[in-house]
């Protein structure tokens, strides 16, 4: 197919080959993933100097380490001699990394410190300072760690844009509205799904519409409020307005609601008295701290291209790591309020485990549907029939300039495929545009 035909923004349709063509997948690696900032972890995973953990920066295996000077490094986990990963432990504390093949040794900052036979046999030929581990550019944003190997990419803040800085910062605020209010709980959840990575992107970007996927869990009570439904906020009586927020120039998207008035606390986290009390206090502290802006409830979103986050009572960040057009590996970080009592952390943790991931009663049905939809994207006859993104088309508008919702972004209220359209419009520019 012609790349120009991948998307039809006016019709609100997208070619199925966007999900199934290995040729397009290779273009994505080159034009979407390589020039992007990626979430790689959180400062709470690096409490002490020498702490490290393995992560991924798009397709690339990286070491995230905290060195002797407390600086955070993101290093390509591949020896410069023959490519062997010098670090093979998911997590730990170390003074450096020794490659097990020929014994080159690297510092926590990637510096090539030791080379067997360096003097005798390299005789100055090897410029050691040029052969350290490849270092990524790093940005720490309210506790979250971001990296890229693209030297020409703008700084992370510009990559985010003013408005998305506001939303991402808000996401990382604790329930009491304090900045950098969360910490990661041990254990990153990792699994694979036989579908294209964009099924996840568009789901997290703004799929308010797939309620039918979850009718089984909606029958039950899995949230913290004890009310039927999977969401805690289902218990809140204050009326709210769902909305999709997108930055069309950058591809970032937010799923959110705005309460029509300052929300009353309705024990939506009332799993137990202790938890209830904690959240009530946080609720009040948050309204005091943020005032009118506390009407905002972020459900989640996507930092373009593949960093997904959930909020609204479940703060998790996920990476959708592209393995092939039809296969994706997912890594999920789970967050709890840094200063909460253990009971709160444990209650949240259990809620995440029954909600999210391959054992999550909610997301299991997402995974099943995405996997099945991938087969449809691979149908050859199907390639003549694009996917439909017409939900609430023509109903978006620029956010009211000057208002705190932002003025770079566009918004659609209520259920919509607004964010998906914005995501794919930007994606198609990168994949099909001049490079």
């Amino acid at each position, binding site marked *: 197919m012609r790349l120009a035909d991948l998307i039809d923004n006016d019709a609100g349709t997208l070619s199925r080959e966007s999900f199934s063509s290995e040729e397009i997948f290779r273009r994505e690696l080159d034009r979407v993933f390589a020039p992007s900032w990626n979430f790689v972890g959180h400062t709470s995973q690096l409490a002490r100097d020498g702490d490290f953990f393995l992560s991924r920066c798009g397709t690339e295996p990286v070491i995230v380490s905290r060195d002797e000077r407390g600086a955070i490094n993101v290093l390509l986990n591949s020896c410069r001699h023959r490519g062997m990963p010098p670090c093979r432990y*998911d997590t730990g504390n170390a003074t450096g990394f020794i490659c097990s093949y020929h014994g080159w040794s690297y510092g926590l900052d990637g510096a090539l410190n030791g080379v067997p036979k360096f003097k005798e046999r390299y005789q100055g030929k090897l410029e050691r300072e040029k052969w350290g581990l490849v270092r990524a550019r790093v940005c720490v944003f309210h506790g979250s760690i971001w990296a890229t190997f693209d030297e020409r990419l703008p700084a992370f803040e510009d990559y985010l844009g003013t408005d998305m800085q506001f939303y991402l910062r808000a996401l990382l605020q604790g329930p009491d509205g304090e900045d950098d209010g969360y910490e990661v709980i*041990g254990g990153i959840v990792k699994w694979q799904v036989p579908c294209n990575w964009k099924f996840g992107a568009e789901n997290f970007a703004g799929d308010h519409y797939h309620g039918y996927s979850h009718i089984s869990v909606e029958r039950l009570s899995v949230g913290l409020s004890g009310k039927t439904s999977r969401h805690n906020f289902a218990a809140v009586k204050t009326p709210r307005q769902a909305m999709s927020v997108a930055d069309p120039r950058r591809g970032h998207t937010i799923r959110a609601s705005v309460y029509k008035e300052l929300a009353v606390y309705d024990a939506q986290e009332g799993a137990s008295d202790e938890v209830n009390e904690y959240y009530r206090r946080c609720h009040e502290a948050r309204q005091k701290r943020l005032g009118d802006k506390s009407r905002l409830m972020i459900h989640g979103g996507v930092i373009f291209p593949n960093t997904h986050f959930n909020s609204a009572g479940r703060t998790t960040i996920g990476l959708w790591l592209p393995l092939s057009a039809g296969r994706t590996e997912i890594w999920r970080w789970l967050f709890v309020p840094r200063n909460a009592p253990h009971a709160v952390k*444990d209650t949240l943790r259990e809620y995440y485990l029954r909600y999210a991931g391959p054992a999550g*009663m909610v997301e299991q049905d997402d995974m099943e549907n995405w996997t099945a939809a991938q087969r449809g994207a691979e149908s050859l006859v199907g390639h003549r029939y694009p996917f439909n993104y017409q939900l609430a088309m023509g109903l978006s508008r620029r956010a009211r300039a000057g208002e705190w919702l932002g003025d770079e972004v566009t918004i659609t209220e209520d259920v919509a495929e607004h964010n998906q359209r914005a995501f794919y419009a930007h994606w198609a520019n990168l994949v099909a545009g001049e490079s």
Partner: protein
Amino acid sequence: MTAADRTSALDALLLQAEVERFFSAEAELLDERRFEEWLDLLHDDIRYWMPIARNVRFNQPALEYTREHSEANWFDEGKDILRKRVQQIAGGDHWAEEPRSRTTHLVANVRIEGANGADVTAKSRFIVCAFRLEHDVDLFVGKRIDVLRRGDDGLKVLRRTIYLDQSVLLSRNLTTFF
């Protein structure tokens, strides 16, 4: 051996056979999707825990599996959640299991590690295969440690620890019970 030794040896045999029969019957309930009946085999206070495996340095085994009650785990729950999972599948609207997977639960190497009072601790190995739709195959392999408590209505699973050998789960879902 003495008659007494022989008697206690045979008692041990009877217990071994009882536990193996219990596990086999349980596996049948799961594979025949008689989940409600399966729940009856679980003690009301059951702890059902499957940690996540990490790759760590040989001298840090304590880090290898995520901790119960505080870290991320595949499963770390009680009977209330397990019951919800059963209710979810029962409706025919839990798409990840509709149509149902065809599972085979194979339990082997059952070894009774000890019995004190009403409780019996048994170690075992499992292979769980789950086939679904036309072509999907998932293979789950690992070890189990069960504490079975004897009550008026026989043995119940009081505590089940499941060590899955995978680190990155190569399957999209864990919709089967272990």
